[in-house]
């Protein structure tokens, strides 16, 4: 059987590599296609289609069977051999399949969405390049490669956020995104280096695989002991912190989340794929990969931060008016759920939620894209000066965009987590396990499940607000200008097909034939550890039922508030302002870090010009060269003492010349004086 297995591994590896490389190939080809020829969309789409096919075949072959690990020597540095290869286990093949499956509808959608853009080809080049990086990220088997592709997805995200590079906001946003991600990258890199120093390898399998080196190391008496070698325990925490930062940056967790809402400046299709479904999930994926590293305390950090992020983002989403921003905050919130799930030990649920979230959030973004596209259409047709993304201008679109509306509803329900949707399955699992985790722990740990529960309700509210404002009521622009013509529709097949596809995937049957028991979901089961606990307590019934009921109530509340106008929210309370201003986090960062760094750099530049260079100029002044240089020193060496020294030194330099006045007898005097002085001095000391 062993050769057989090797054979299978060989084939699966090959298929994986093909699936990964195809988008890269498409990107390379697209790069050389002239702008007039708009065939790049098809090239990329076909590539991702084939890639999806290969990925699914690999998924089918590897899911729930033995993991495949193949590697090849990449380079040798010193005595360390660095390998490159693929590691296919349930986690990676799930991601491997998920990415192209989500990317495919986005590609199709993009062909229509970006049709007008003059840099159409460039767009698909970038998009394919992203797909390549993302696919590679999930399958590679070494920390160094993981880090490499980790940064490359960030880079392609940078390119796509700033795709419309003439827009200042877009460019600001992509710079911010990249730099915030760089913070995470530095963290991750530190972790990679620490792990390398501790274990001497970059191999993920050897580190985190079953019986890997990480699981064999312990922290004792402040020392982090590995099978071969040891470090002070603090470096384990630093490694954790590094991974945390990496995760927080990529998955937009507090405190590094502020880039994601800004990233909405990119094309909406990009937001759907990268900033909702795939790339941002990479942080959670990373936690999944590095799971054995974390100690229970560190896991609770994840739980707390995840919970906090989820709550904070949901509370911000309540008051935002930008369609995409609301969705962005909702993404942050949902990612918070996943991180929370990782923290509470609901490893399987977390990844399950990752998968379901990918579908319905992508769907919602595509919907948003259509809405925005149509709003833009209205704006151009009627020469209005409005923000096409502002939901306050929308309303009553359900009649004009029926398919979009239905998809939106399905997506929203999944996001809220109502029965019969995929979101229900994954999210309830997280809530339940959060309660189970908190049981018996200190009171403040109880805040985690409570916060999660509260967040679910907030989610129900802001999602309802969104749907209601966009699709119900009257089209509000008509209030301002009744002459506006509405020539809008759901769009062609490029729009419709992805919506339908993704909407179907947001319902329960894809994941579980049992509509309300998440434990029955096959994806969930694929990630369960062998020794998991069966459902055992009251939470398993109480929570789903309770949450569903409350959510429906909240939804009605929102409906009542925004359509029937029964209640009017106060818009000037501090809570409102806190939420509306996104908890002021961006402002604080700007004051603290951006301004701080700039001030520091200006200070150092000043230091460089004056002090360090000043010393050098001092040395030059000793020899009193060109007067212009002296002037220079005069101007720049502000320090009075230093200036004094300069003058003094220049004087000494000229001392010799002082005696050289051209008068002969003066020379003789000088000579005599010097000789006598020296002579007397000599006599005195001897």
């Amino acid at each position, binding site marked *: 059987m062993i050769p057989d297995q090797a054979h299978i591994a060989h084939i699966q590896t090959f298929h994986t590599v093909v699936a990964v490389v195809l988008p890269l190939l498409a990107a390379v080809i697209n790069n050389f296609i002239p702008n007039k020829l708009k065939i790049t969309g098809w090239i990329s789409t076909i590539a991702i289609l084939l890639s999806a096919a290969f990925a699914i075949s690999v998924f089918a072959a590897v899911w729930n069977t033995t993991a495949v690990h193949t590697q090849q020597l990449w380079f040798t540095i010193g005595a360390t051999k660095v390998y490159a290869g693929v590691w296919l286990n349930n986690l990676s093949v799930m991601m491997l399949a998920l990415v192209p499956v989500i990317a495919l509808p986005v590609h199709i959608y993009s062909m229509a969405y970006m049709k007008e853009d003059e840099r159409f080809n460039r767009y698909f080049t970038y998009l394919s390049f992203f797909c390549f990086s993302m696919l590679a990220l999930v399958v590679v088997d070494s920390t160094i490669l993981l880090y490499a592709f980790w940064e490359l997805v960030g880079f392609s995200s940078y390119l796509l956020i700033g795709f419309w590079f003439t827009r200042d906001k877009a460019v600001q946003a992509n710079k911010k995104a990249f730099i915030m991600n760089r913070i995470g990258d530095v963290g991750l890199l530190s972790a990679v280096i620490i792990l390398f120093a501790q274990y001497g390898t970059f191999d993920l399998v050897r580190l985190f695989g079953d019986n890997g080196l990480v699981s064999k190391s312990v922290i004792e008496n402040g020392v982090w002991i590995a099978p071969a070698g040891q470090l002070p325990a603090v470096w384990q925490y630093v490694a954790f912190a590094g991974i945390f930062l990496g995760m927080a940056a990529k998955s937009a967790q507090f405190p590094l989340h502020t880039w994601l809402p800004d990233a909405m400046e990119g094309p909406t299709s990009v937001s759907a794929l990268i900033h909702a479904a795939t790339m941002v999930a990479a942080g959670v994926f990373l936690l999944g990969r590095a799971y054995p590293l974390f100690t229970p305390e560190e896991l609770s950090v994840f739980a707390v931060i995840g919970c906090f992020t989820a709550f904070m983002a949901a509370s911000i989403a309540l008051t935002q008016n930008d369609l995409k921003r609301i969705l962005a905050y909702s993404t942050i919130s949902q990612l918070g759920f996943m991180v929370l799930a990782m923290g509470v030990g609901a490893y399987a649920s977390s990844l399950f939620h990752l998968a379901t979230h990918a579908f319905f959030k992508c769907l919602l973004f595509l919907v948003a894209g259509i809405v925005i596209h149509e709003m833009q259409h209205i704006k151009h047709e009627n020469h209005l000066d409005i923000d096409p993304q502002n939901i306050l201008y929308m309303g009553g679109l359900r009649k004009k965009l029926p398919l979009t509306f239905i998809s939106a509803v399905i997506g929203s329900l999944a996001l809220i987590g109502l029965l019969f949707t995929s979101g229900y399955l994954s999210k309830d699992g997280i809530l339940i396990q959060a309660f189970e985790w908190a049981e018996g722990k200190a009171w403040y740990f109880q805040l985690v499940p409570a916060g999660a529960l509260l967040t679910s309700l907030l989610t129900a509210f802001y999602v309802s607000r969104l749907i209601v404002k966009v699709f119900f009521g009257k089209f509000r622009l008509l209030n301002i200008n009744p002459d506006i013509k509405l020539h809008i529709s759901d769009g062609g097949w490029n729009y419709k097909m992805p919506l339908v596809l993704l909407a179907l995937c947001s319902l329960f049957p894809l994941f579980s034939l049992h509509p309300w028991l998440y434990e029955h979901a096959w994806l969930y089961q694929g990630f369960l550890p062998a020794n998991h606990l069966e459902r055992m307590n009251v939470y398993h019934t109480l929570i789903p039922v309770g949450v569903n009921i409350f959510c429906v109530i909240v939804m009605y509340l929102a409906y009542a508030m925004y359509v029937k106008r029964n209640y009017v929210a106060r818009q000037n309370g501090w809570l409102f302002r806190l939420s509306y201003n996104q908890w002021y986090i961006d402002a604080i960062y700007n004051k603290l870090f951006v301004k701080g760094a700039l001030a520091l750099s200006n200070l150092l530049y000043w230091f460089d010009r004056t002090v360090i260079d000043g010393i050098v100029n001092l040395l*030059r002044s000793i020899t009193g060269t060109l007067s212009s240089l002296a002037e220079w020193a005069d101007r720049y060496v502000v320090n009075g003492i230093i200036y004094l020294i300069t003058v003094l030194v220049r004087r000494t330099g000229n001392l010799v010349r002082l005696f050289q006045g051209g008068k*002969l007898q003066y020379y003789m005097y000088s000579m005599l004086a010097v000789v006598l002085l020296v*002579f007397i001095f000599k006599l005195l000391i001897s």
Partner: protein
Amino acid sequence: MHDLLPTIPEQLSKILSDVHFFVPELYLSGLFVLVLLADLFIGKRSEKYCRAIGIAGLIIVFFKDYEQYSLAEQAGGAVPLFSGMLLLYNKAVSFKVIIDLLTVLLMIYFPWDNKLSTHKKGLSDLYTITIGSVLGLHLMTMATNLLSIFLAVEMVSISSYLMVAYRSESGFSAEAGLKYVLFGAASSAVLLYGISLLYGFTGSLDIWDPKFMVNLTATGIAGVGLALTLVLIGIGFKLSFVPVHFWVPDVYEGAATPVTAYLSTVPKIAAFALLINFVNAFVAVVPHPDFDFRLVLSAIGIVTMIAGNFAAVAQQNVKRMLAYSSIGHTGFALMAVVTYSPQGLNSLIYYLAVYAIANIAALLMATYYTNQTGAEKVTEYKGLGFKYPIVSVCFVIILISLTGLPVSAGFTGKLFVFSSVYATYQQNHDVWLLALMITGAVVTVVSLFYYIKIPLNLFLRKGALPFEHDHSDKKIIALSILLTILIIFLGLFPHFLYKVL
């Protein structure tokens, strides 16, 4: 008197037998008379002939030097001549060879300077004086008796005064001459007084006389210190170290450029030979307990390096700048003197030789620019590099050598000097040697400050005034190229010169 009579024949025969060790000097004396006579008899067109005779004669003297060298070798390396008046040893001959060759070079160069060649009385006398001066220099290299020291120094001094003041129609030249002669006369008076004191303390004029050192050691520190200081002032006047350097900038600037080239090189080399002869007597047998020559000369060396180089930085006149730089070089060369080692002596000779070549070349090119454009200040060199590329490139290379950067003879010279000082330092860990080396390194950087001003103006700045195109001076160009190649060659293969020293 009667006591002396019996020894007279013996002494006379001794003197006569020493004469064959003295051939180059005899030839020089003959040459002096010959050139003088040629000037007298040929009349107006004597200039060329005097020059030709002088050069040819010096070349013959050069060969005689070689014979003298082998004679000295046969006689065991060192021969006292004329009952200890002179000491002929192989290094002294090396000094002489260098002096003779450099003088040949300078004799070639003399009439190329427009200012000097337009002197109404012609240059014949100058050649005569030069030959006379060389004779004095020869004696200086060998002098070991206080009398011969004084005689040699005076011989050179008097001819130098004449050379400086040679261009009697020029105010500068006269002024320089006046300063030189008065300063020089005073210095030699001081020297003589010092000598008289030494004579009084020891009762002997021969510094190698055993009783000289014995009696000197018995004398008190104050007396010895005073006497030696006075003597050092006299020698230092020729070497131009601090504090007896004051005459140097004015005299070098005021004298005709070839004369400056002569003064800044050849007498200096001989003066170093003299200093070594003098100092050797004090350190070779037993170092004098009270008077530490190493300390004194090291301190002088350091101060001289600093004073010369730092003062040069502010100079605008090229000749004056080179004058200060020559003071700096004196300080550097003193470093090799204080090693008291044969290796140090070799390094010193090498260093002085390449310094002299480079300095003569530099002044030669300064002459070129003055001839062509009248430029004497650095600022007047603006943009000349593009007009006279060949000479300018040579100038840069020569300056590189003077700074002591590779690839040039100046660098190898510096390397040898440092090596010898280091070798001595390694043995005795004398902190003064270390201080000398560090100062030497620092002033190298400082010297770049002023040397670089010349290439800076030649190449980096664009000239303001358009100069009328003068017919190029092919001879100077050729000689410059030759010297430049020599400098580079010695930078790459120093052993060709070092080995024969």
